[in-house]
């Protein structure tokens, strides 16, 4: 009998929270679930891969590093694009998402990714692809793609944790920072130790900018309003506490900081760069997960 009741409870009040909970739903701050729980994880990964792919492409433009362009282009389109489509309830209708660029941030993103795909391919296959005008256009497109995921979230006024002013700068810096780390690793293993060492100065700049953006995001969201404060509190309790401390505190900040200090002045080596790359990827995934998971709606009454 108790099993039957438990089964009924699981159906009426599924653990994913989609069931009816009249005593708390929108009476207390209610968490958004669609873009992070269950299949929503696809969106979390899609935003991440689009961001790091475009970040790698962006940084590669400055070093005229064609392999970086190719890998960045592939990560953005194959991993980011395909996972985006897999998330949809009706993937075969994905083409319809080009229909409303005037109001929908998602639609604008599809257009930007489409233009990026076409021009990026042109830049990769043509010999004079690194001319200033072309690179500037591609750089702007990359920045738009990097910020696309968080921009889509940023326009949602109902979720203060996402509509915080620092969400977009954080997204831009994290994309460039991780893209830079991937490129630095590629350069270091391809035998260009001097270039990898030279890139370390920028790695340090990006890392500190990234750290500053995280601090400002937390500070800004905490002080935005009561619901923003609730989101930050949620990031620091329950299951998210471990992810916040280990993922963001340790992997995204502390370990890269230690490694940046070890390699300070350009004393780099491939293993340390790889270690830092692994940490910043895991850290940024954790950061995005925590931000997406902790967004709450203002109660209706």
């Amino acid at each position: 009998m108790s099993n039957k009741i438990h089964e009924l409870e699981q159906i009426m009040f599924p653990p994913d929270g989609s069931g009816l909970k009249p005593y708390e739903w929108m009476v207390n701050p209610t968490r958004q679930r669609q873009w992070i729980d269950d299949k929503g994880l696809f969106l979390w990964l899609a935003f991440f891969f689009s961001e790091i792919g475009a970040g790698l492409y962006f940084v590669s433009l400055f070093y005229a590093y064609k392999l970086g362009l190719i890998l960045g282009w592939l990560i953005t389109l194959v991993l980011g694009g395909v996972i985006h489509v897999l998330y949809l309830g009706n993937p075969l209708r994905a083409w319809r998402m080009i229909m409303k660029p005037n109001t929908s941030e998602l639609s604008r993103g599809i257009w930007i990714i489409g233009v990026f795909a076409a021009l990026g391919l042109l830049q990769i296959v043509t010999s004079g692809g690194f001319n200033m005008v072309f690179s500037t256009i591609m750089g702007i497109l990359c920045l738009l793609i990097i910020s696309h995921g968080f921009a889509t979230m940023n326009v949602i006024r109902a979720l203060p944790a996402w509509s915080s002013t620092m969400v977009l700068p954080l997204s831009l810096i994290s994309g460039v920072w991780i893209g830079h780390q991937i490129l630095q690793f590629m350069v270091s293993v391809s035998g260009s130790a001097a270039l990898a060492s030279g890139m370390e100065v920028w790695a340090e700049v990006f890392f500190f900018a990234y750290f500053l953006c995280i601090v400002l995001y937390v500070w800004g969201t905490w002080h935005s309003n009561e619901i923003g404060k609730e989101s930050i509190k949620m990031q620091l309790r329950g299951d998210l506490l471990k992810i916040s401390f280990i993922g963001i505190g340790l992997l995204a900040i502390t370990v890269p900081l230690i490694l940046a200090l070890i390699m300070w002045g350009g004393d780099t080596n491939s293993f340390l760069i790889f270690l830092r790359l692994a940490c910043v990827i895991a850290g940024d995934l954790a950061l995005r997960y925590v931000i997406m998971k902790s967004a709450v709606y203002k109660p209706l009454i």
Partner: protein
Amino acid sequence: MPRWGMVIDVKRCIACWGCAIACKEEHFLPPGVFFNRVLIGETGKFPTSSKIIYPILCNHCSDAACVEACPTGATYVREDGIVAVDDEKCVGCRACLVSCPYQQRTYYDQKVKDREYFPGQGKTEMELIGEKLYPFKVGTVIKCNFCSERLEDGMKKGLTPGKDEDASPACVNICPVNARIFGDLDDPDSEINRLIMEKKGKQLRKEFGTEPAVYYID
């Protein structure tokens, strides 16, 4: 062309959940899916605390966040002010669902479709008939439509929505205390406009600037 709206008198509401159940019956909604809900909260501190009851449904906003967010145009505001979803165009991105400050939309996936009212015993005849009469498409978003089918059928018969039962939303008809009043917001002589003006009708979470068509009076 009218612009449909609703006034809900929260002082009259007794939280019987009749609106929610009538809506489920009208649209054959599966377990766990509600287009109408009743929120019950508290205000103040003991011993001066009091209970607050708010029946809620889609606000059919004229400047709807869901319409803005929809990348395909599947969610749109009809000429009569009803916010509708074209399930042929919906890609299931759920941008509308996330952007709605009132959380009045539901993503209809296979998991929701497979839910049974009597778990493990298969779907009842009623549930099976519902799937035929009121089919939702898997992978799309569903929501309250102010019972637009009833409105349209009723008007074809020359009935007046808000006055005649056969042309009014199910939640309005079922309400035992007449807490819900339905009518044309563009008609200055309509009862709902009179109530909004006389009793200073309030929209829910006006700060989001979505211009809801559902007003609350007390």
